């Protein structure tokens, strides 16, 4: 029994000592910043995107400049907000959606420095005051060739035609993946007349096929049902469709039904390393690293001068190469979205949840 007492005491003491040490070790935290930048903290979405950016942009950047890039993923807007509000920004660079950089420009993000960036290198409308695009992605109608090969769906109206094209359908559970836009186009609204969004009309249209929808929120929730043939069609990221195709799946994309979106680099407000973060953005969005990123990931290079070497399947699924261009795709209205973000997302999620 005595042994046990001694053991407990020892454990407690060692626990306290360890805690004490950690406190001592971290006391230097948050003080640096007066001298030259030697380290940047990047917060991304994690996973493959982080891995690829590390290989194609961060490591070469460190070699060139001696500035190392620390990864602090996953990013969270809530976390960013707390940091900024308490004047304690520990991120120097983050990924963002153009809607977010528009909505929270100067509130959470620093305006970008355009001195060394050529606006014409990027697709029109994808540079915002607080964000520079890293890549383009596309959300489009995909369908199972094995099921509809002879007579494939070609328009978004077909997506809502459950008699001609029966089966379960993938559909985004977040309005920011442009769920309402797809419904309105299918209902006959012209792309240039989409905004302001007629939420009620879109939801009424979606109601007609609600019982056939399989909602996705996470990236994997798109690939798995396609690979398992649990759905016959869907509104999904083309990057995920490519992944399915590369794994031997039978899905194809109906170009012309797609919306093109951009993901951006943004610099959190209050960073002590703005200049270094800006040079990292300039480097990461230059043609060379952009091309390599495009080759490794199913997303198009944002810099239109990038010349990625893509194989046939990659080309077919690439929103900028595969028979598609900005002429037929529609681009979301980021300003409208930024102004009405809460309202639309709440209305849509209430519809989905109810």
């Amino acid at each position: 029994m005595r042994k046990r007492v001694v053991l407990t005491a020892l454990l407690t003491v060692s626990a306290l000592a360890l805690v004490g040490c950690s406190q001592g070790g971290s006391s230097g935290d948050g003080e640096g910043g007066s001298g030259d930048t030697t380290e940047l903290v990047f917060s991304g979405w994690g996973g493959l995107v982080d891995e690829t950016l590390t290989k194609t942009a961060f490591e070469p950047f460190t070699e060139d400049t001696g500035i190392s890039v620390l990864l602090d993923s996953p990013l969270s807007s809530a976390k960013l907000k707390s940091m900024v509000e308490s004047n304690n920004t520990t991120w120097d660079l983050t990924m963002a959606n153009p809607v977010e950089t528009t909505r929270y420009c100067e509130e959470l993000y620093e305006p970008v420095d355009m001195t060394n960036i050529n606006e014409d290198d990027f697709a029109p409308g994808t540079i915002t005051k607080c964000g520079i695009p890293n890549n383009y992605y596309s959300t489009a109608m995909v369908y199972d060739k094995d099921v509809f090969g002879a007579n494939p769906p070609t328009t978004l109206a077909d997506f809502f035609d459950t008699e001609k094209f029966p089966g379960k359908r993938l559909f985004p559970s977040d309005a920011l993946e442009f769920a309402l836009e797809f419904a309105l186009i299918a209902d006959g609204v012209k792309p240039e007349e989409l905004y302001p969004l007629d939420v009620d009309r879109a939801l009424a249209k979606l109601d007609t096929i609600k019982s056939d929808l399989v909602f996705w929120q996470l990236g994997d929730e798109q690939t798995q049902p396609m690979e398992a043939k649990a759905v016959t069609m869907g509104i999904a990221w083309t990057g995920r469709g490519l992944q399915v195709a590369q794994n031997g799946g039978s899905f194809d994309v109906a170009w012309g039904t797609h919306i093109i979106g951009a993901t951006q680099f943004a610099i959190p407000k209050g960073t002590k390393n703005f200049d270094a973060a800006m040079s990292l953005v300039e480097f990461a969005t230059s043609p060379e690293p952009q091309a390599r990123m495009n080759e490794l990931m199913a997303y198009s290079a944002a810099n239109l001068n990038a010349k990625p070497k893509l194989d046939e399947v990659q080309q077919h699924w690439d929103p900028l190469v595969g028979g598609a261009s900005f002429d037929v795709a529609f681009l979301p209205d980021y300003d409208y979205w930024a102004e009405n973000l809460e309202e639309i997302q709440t209305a849509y999620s209430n519809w989905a949840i109810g």
Partner: protein
Amino acid sequence: MNLITRAFRSKGVIRLLSVPALIVVVVFFVLPCIVLILESFGWPEWSFSGYAKDLIDPTIATVMLRTFGISAAVTAIALVISFPYAYLMTQVSARTRIIMIAIVLIPFWTSLLARTFAWMVIFQANGPLQSLLGFFGIQSEPVLGTATGVLIAMVQVLLPFMILPLYSSLSGIDPNYLRAAAALGANGIQTFFKVYAPLALGGVAAGTMLVFIMSLGFYITPRIIGSPQQAMIGQIIAMRVDKFLDFGGAGVLSMLLVLAFLVTMLVLGGIVLIARRFKTTWK
């Protein structure tokens, strides 16, 4: 020494034993929550508009009811599943008991994320479950994204939290009481309800509370296994924080959740009290 001894026997000093834990919880939990509550009232101003809006919002009401419904179902199923198991643990030989404890501890020590992930795989289209059912000639839809899936996964994830406190309390019941009851002529059912169940109540209460409360705040499992139609209140709170950076609105919902929980407990407590009163009068 004598002084210390006497001091330790007084209630006042014993009460002091809770002070260290109290300091940690108050400083690092209660204080942050108070700040959040203030924010839910629009601090530094003072307004009830957040509460007024959510209280009349039919979606919030639906999700709140669903959250309580799912949690109650999970708790009830877990209790029914666990009780015979925990009971058997007290009846078998020490060797069998060790195996039975091991079977509970293996999932218990495997992370919640890993187990939820396992269910995601099992329930997915053309996954093991569909294949198994197909093997028996049963055609079925994938369970991923349905209420059934959420329920099964939550029960399995929370089962150890029910079994362990149950067993810990059942094992403390002196079998002599049961023998005494039998010797006094009580039959099995009488013994169970009159002697065993009251003695087991501590463990039942602990396990039930634990599982119910954990279910109320569940967020990861319904998010991964369910579809939006199974969204629980934790997901709405997360959405407000993650997407809208609306800390005040998140505070409002969590206050409502806590209040709804307290009301439920009060009502249940009231029912128990009334029932007890009736029993005594009846006798």
